[in-house]
C-alpha cells in the first residue's frame, strides 16, 4: 500500500522529529561501540586476573556493565542518572537534585550579579569615552586569565574576609558571565540608527530619555543573545568554583568525588545533570525572549 506508506513518511510529527531522532540514534550507536572498544582490555584483564575462562559474549556483556568503566555505556549513565534523581529524597546528599539545586542557586545569583555588572559597565562605557579607554583593556584582560587558576585565589581571599559557601561561588560565576553581557550591551546601546539619534536630538531629548526610549529598546535583541551565552557560562563558573574548594555539595563536588574514586558513571551522570540544567536555563531565557519580542512587535 504505497498510499499508507507516504502518509506515514510525510506526517508533520515524523518530518519534524526524524532528523533529531536519526542523529541521536547515530550518536548512541557510536557511543556503544566506543564503550565496547574502550572497556574491552579492562574487562579482559579482569577475567585473566581471575584466570577464569570467558566467552566473547561474556566479554561484551562485561563492557556494558563494568562497575568502573573507562567509558560507561549510555544505559548505565541513564540508569545512574534516574536513580540519583528519583531514587532519593531531594534533600539527601546522594540525590542529584540536591546537588543540582546547590549549583543552580550559585549559578542564578552569579548570573544576576554578572548581568547587573555587565549592564552597568556597558552603560558607563557607552556614555564616556574616557571610561571606554580605561575600562575596556581591563575587562578584556580579566577574561584572559584561566578561571581555574583564579578560582582558588578568589575562594581563599573571600574566605579570609569571612565569605563562605554560596557567595564566593556566585562571585566566580559573575566574574565569568559579566563579560559577554558587557560586550553585547555596548554593541546594543550603540546600535540605534544615526537617523533615530538625530530625531531624538530634534526633539531635544535628554540623554536619560535617549537611553530609556531608544538605546534600551534597541539593545534588547543584543541583551538576550548575551544573556544566553552568560547563563551557560554562569553555570560553568559555579561548577568550576566547586572544584578547587573541596565543596561538599554541588555538581562540581560530584564530579570531583567521582574522579577521586574512579566512579566514572557518577561523573557522567553529573555531566548529564549539568547539561539538563544548562538546557533548561537557556530554554527559560529563550521563552522570555519570545514573550518580550512579541510585545515589541517582532515578526514571528
Amino acid at each position, binding site marked *: 500500500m504505497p498510499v499508507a506508506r507516504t502518509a506515514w513518511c510525510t506526517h508533520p510529527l515524523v518530518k519534524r522529529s526524524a532528523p533529531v531522532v536519526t542523529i541521536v540514534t547515530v550518536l548512541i550507536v557510536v557511543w556503544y561501540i566506543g564503550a565496547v572498544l574502550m572497556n574491552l582490555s579492562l574487562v579482559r584483564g579482569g577475567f585473566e586476573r581471575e584466570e577464569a575462562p570467558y566467552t566473547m559474549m561474556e566479554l561484551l556483556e562485561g563492557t556494558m556493565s563494568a562497575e568502573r568503566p573507562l567509558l560507561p555505556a549510555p544505559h548505565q549513565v541513564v540508569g545512574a542518572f534516574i536513580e540519583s534523581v528519583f531514587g532519593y529524597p531531594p534533600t539527601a546528599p546522594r540525590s542529584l537534585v540536591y546537588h543540582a539545586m546547590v549549583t543552580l542557586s550559585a549559578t542564578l545569583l552569579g548570573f544576576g550579579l554578572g548581568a547587573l555588572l555587565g549592564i552597568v559597565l556597558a552603560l558607563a562605557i557607552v556614555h564616556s569615552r574616557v571610561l571606554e579607554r580605561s575600562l575596556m583593556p581591563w575587562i578584556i584582560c580579566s577574561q584572559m586569565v584561566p578561571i581555574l587558576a583564579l578560582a582558588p585565589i578568589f575562594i581563599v581571599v573571600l574566605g579570609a574576609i569571612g565569605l563562605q559557601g554560596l557567595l564566593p561561588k556566585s562571585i566566580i560565576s559573575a566574574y565569568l558571565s559579566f563579560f559577554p553581557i558587557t560586550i553585547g550591551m555596548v554593541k546594543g546601546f550603540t546600535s540605534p540608527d544615526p*537617523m533615530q539619534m538625530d530625531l531624538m536630538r530634534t526633539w531635544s531629548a535628554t540623554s536619560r530619555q535617549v537611553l530609556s526610549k*531608544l538605546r534600551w529598546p534597541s539593545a534588547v535583541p543584543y541583551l538576550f543573545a548575551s544573556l544566553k551565552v552568560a547563563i551557560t557560562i554562569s553555570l560553568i563558573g559555579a561548577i568550576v568554583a566547586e572544584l578547587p574548594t573541596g565543596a561538599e555539595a554541588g555538581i562540581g563536588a560530584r564530579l570531583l568525588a567521582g574522579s577521586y574514586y574512579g566512579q566514572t558513571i557518577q561523573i557522567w551522570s553529573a555531566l548529564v545533570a549539568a547539561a539538563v540544567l544548562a538546557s533548561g536555563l537557556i530554554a527559560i531565557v529563550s521563552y522570555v525572549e519570545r514573550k518580550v519580542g512579541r510585545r515589541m512587535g517582532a515578526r514571528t
Partner: protein
Amino acid sequence: MTLLVEPVRMNSTADAEPHIYQSNVTRPIAVDVSKVSLTFDTTDGKVEALSNVDLQIGGGEFVSFIGPSGCGKTTLLRVIADLQQPSSGAVTVNGMSAEQARLGRNYGYVFQAPALFPWRSIEANLKLPLELMGFSPTEQKQRAARYLDLVNLTGFERKFPWQLSGGMQQRVSIARALSFDPELLLMDEPFGALDEIVRDHLNEQLLQLWAKTRKTVLFVTHSIPEAVFLSTKIVVMSPRPGRITDIIDCNFPRDRTLEIRETPEFMAIAQRVRTGLRAGHSYDE
C-alpha cells in the same frame, strides 16, 4: 519684528550681476541664514559643503532646495535644524538661534527614511515626541488620533511599522513630525525612496496638509517636477563649493493640482530650474 518686505538678495558667485527677488510674502521671517559656510575635514582634505550661503524664508512659505548630490542642500537643512554647526555665519529660526529653536522644539524633521521605532506600534511612534515633551496621556492619545487622520492612516494605530508599506511609513513619520505642532517642517528628500505614483499621491497630500496647517516647509529634493509642483520658492544649489545659484519664485495657487504640470507656466519654471542646475555645472560629470 522684521518683515520680509525688503528684497531678498541672493548670494551668487556664478553671476556677475546679482538678481534681486521680490517676495510677495509679508509674514515674519521664519528662517534667516546669513553668510553660512561649513567646511568638512575629510581624509581627502577639506570639503566646502556650504560656502557663504545667504537665504531668508518667510513664514508660511514652501521652499524647495534642489541640486545635485554634494551641493550641500541636506547640510543646509541640518544646519538650520542645529544638527550640524556651521564653520562661520549665523542662522536664525523664528527669531532665535538655531540651537534655541531646536531646544524650543520649533521644527519637525522628516528624514529620507521613515526612521520609525520598530518596537513601537504606529500610535506609540506618534506619541514618542509627545512623551518626551511631557504631554498628558489623554492629550497624547488625542493628538496621535488627529494626526493619523491627517495623513489618512486612521485604523493603523495598533500595527507595527513593518506591517505598513514604505509610503505609509513615511506618512507616519510626517504625522510624527507634525504631532507637536511645530511652526516649521524640515523635510529631507522624504519621498526619495518611493515610486513615482506613490510620490505623486504624497505630493498632493503634502500640499493639502500645507494648505491646512499653514506651516513653513523647507523641502529638499532631487526632482524638478516635485520642486516646481510643491513650492512657493525654489532654491537651486550647486556643488564644490556648495552654494545657492538661483532662487526662483513659483506662485501657483495653494490649491494646485497635479494637472498644472501640463501648463506652460509650469514648464517655464521647470525649464528655468533646469537651466539653473546646468549653469552650476551639475551635469558636467
